[in-house]
């Protein structure tokens, strides 16, 4: 099977949906003439013209509201935030309009919109440009939050997101845009709301998503050499959470560690662990641990940045704590 990068996979998803449905269009800062700040939309202006690939002023509140209005009238906009940190400028449009109109209109209006862009820490862009927004948006009802970790899921989930009639947050990560993965050349989508078991194991369940999956994979490989088999779950969708896959796995392994790039307090890992204790208490042989971003604004300093976000050493330390007595 051919191998492409996540960046290419996202572009393919956009182009295929552009071709499939003329109501799909993209807008955002630098998406047209500049080919996208991260080159996701490279070549799309030439291919689809300025009516469907629209450069906007630096005005998230404005163009997000514009896109929500377009969605209400039957178009299917894809809003590119140069990074999800800038979505905060449009927070009111997103939360009070995109996520609420379907409910407030008694179901008469849908908002089929995709908010996409890089999320989380990049490299030395400091705290204002390194937010993980998934717990913020997933906290509120009226939206879907997906955060794929590989090219196949990125393409399939973005296509599913564009076809979905709800506001969908499609969270990319700058650090993994160049990760290469197998992607088929036929039309496919990936079901929203399904987690994937990337590695089967028996001793512990490691749960994560997006960029952190790559750290987790290394950890799983290292333990495999020691005869400890860790089951690795890629959540893929943050909301709605795939509760079934999580609890089936923990009931099998009796131990779990959740790795989340974002902050610890009221984060996605907190929700996952709450679900585990609710459904798996009598199957737990150890407390469930989480490895998250430290409780501090993300520092600019490279060594401090590397220590603040989860890393392989911290993931292993958490695993060691609850593997005591197992081998």
């Amino acid at each position, binding site marked *: 099977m051919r191998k492409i990068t996540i960046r290419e996979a996202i572009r393919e998803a956009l182009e295929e949906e552009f071709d499939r449905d003329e109501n799909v269009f993209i807008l955002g800062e630098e998406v047209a003439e500049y080919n996208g700040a991260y080159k996701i939309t490279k070549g799309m202006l030439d291919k689809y013209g300025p009516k469907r690939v629209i450069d906007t002023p630096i005005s998230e509140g404005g163009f997000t509201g514009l896109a929500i209005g377009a969605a209400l009238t039957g178009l299917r906009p894809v809003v590119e935030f140069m990074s999800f940190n800038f979505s905060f400028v449009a927070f009111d449009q997103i939360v009070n309009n995109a996520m609420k109109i379907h409910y407030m209109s008694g179901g008469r209006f849908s908002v089929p919109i995709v908010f996409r862009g890089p999320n989380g820490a990049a490299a030395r862009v400091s705290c204002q440009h390194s937010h993980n927004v998934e717990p913020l948006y997933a906290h509120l009802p009226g939206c879907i939050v997906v955060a794929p970790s590989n090219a196949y899921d990125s393409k399939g989930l973005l296509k599913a997101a564009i076809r979905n009639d709800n506001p969908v947050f499609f969270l990319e990560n700058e650090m993994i845009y160049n990760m290469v993965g197998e992607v088929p050349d036929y039309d496919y989508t990936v079901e929203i709301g399904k987690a994937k078991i990337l590695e089967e194991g028996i001793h512990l369940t490691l749960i994560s998503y997006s960029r952190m999956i790559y750290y987790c994979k290394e950890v799983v490989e290292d333990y495999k050499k020691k005869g400890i088999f860790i089951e690795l779950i890629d959540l893929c969708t943050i909301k709605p959470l795939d509760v079934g896959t999580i609890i089936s796995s923990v009931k099998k392994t009796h131990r779990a560690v959740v790795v989340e790039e974002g902050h610890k307090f009221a984060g996605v890992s907190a929700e996952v662990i709450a679900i585990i204790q609710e459904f798996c208490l*009598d199957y*737990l*042989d150890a*407390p469930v641990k989480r490895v998250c971003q430290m409780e501090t604004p993300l520092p600019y300093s490279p060594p401090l940045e590397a220590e603040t976000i989860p890393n392989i050493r911290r993931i292993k330390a958490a695993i060691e704590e*609850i593997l005591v*007595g197992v081998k």
Partner: protein
Amino acid sequence: MPIIVTMPALSPTMEEGIIASWLVKEGDKVLDGDALCEIATDKSTVEFQAIDGGYIRKIITPEGGSAKVNAPIAVITKTADEDISSLIPAVEKKKEEAEVLVEAVKTKASPSTGMNVMTFSPPPPRDKIRPMVKPSLHASPLAKKIASEKGLNISSVKGSGPSGRIIAKDLDLAAKETISTRRDSYLYPDGTFEEIALTPVRKIIGDRLQASKMTIPHYVISQTVNMTKIMALRSDLKDLEIKVTFNDFVVRAAALALKKHPNINMGYDSAKNVLIQYKTIDISLAVSVPDGLITPILWQADYMSLSEISAEAKKLALKAKQGTLEPREYQGGSFTISNLGMFGVTSFQAVINPPQAAILGVGGISEMAISVDGKITSGHVMNISVSMDHRVIDGAEGAQFLTTIKSLLENPVSLVI
């Protein structure tokens, strides 16, 4: 300083003890732990040892003598010649007081009937040899779940998990829970009990039946009744939508039998020592109620038809269960019927309900091989027994009465005409 040795309390119920034998005599030197004497209580004879060593200076209670608990029985001094003369009068006085007290207690405890009422009290619970509060168990939820499912004694293993927590893997070494280890989880020490005050109902039942069993010379005679015909009759009545219980038949039979044998329909007044000849046949029915039992009465039962008996008995039983019986509905009666058949008992001997002189105990109906006209066949039988007061009714009279009941029940047409 002289030491006064007193009568020990060797059991919680002990009030006084008898010196079965002295193992020392006045002037002997004893060490602590030496046996001084043997003390007989109401339960056993126990060797009594010196708590302090010294010289036996005076034996106050002689062999065969009794002393109340804590009354002085001997005096010990540290030296052989310590002066105890000042002590003697006080000791003697105390001893007299104690003896007077014992007498008083004896007099008070004697029942007015002149009979010795035996008293029973349970032994105290055994010592708390095991910790009664279980230490909190440091085990994972999974380990606890598996241990409980497999019946493993989780406290028998050492935890290898974080901070010594017992994890599932540790249970490989856990012993199957056995009787001895399971004892650790007992809620109470062996022999634990609580005392429950008598409810008024239990007090009345106790007083009446104790008096009955203690003062009435009971005798019991039994018969086996072939119930084949009565079962067929009951089934026929059922087809006619007339529902009667087996007990209704028994009541009807007893009423007719009492009419035929008025010498059974009697009582005994223990206060006046006179016989009572009841002129009416009033049958008390023993009904079990939540806090005891009660005996509502079918007045003039010999005038009642089977269906009247059935309806009235049903009504009374319901009122008894609801606790709405009025005194006139249960006070009195000339004869009692107690039926435990519904509990599957084969037969039993009922205690007479005084001042009545007889009570009929009815067992359950069971299917068994019976001999009819020399042939073994399957049939239904019921055991009935009647307890009689021999002061009132002699054996032959009782036997004739029971035979009449048997005959009526075995030819049940007589009960419905």
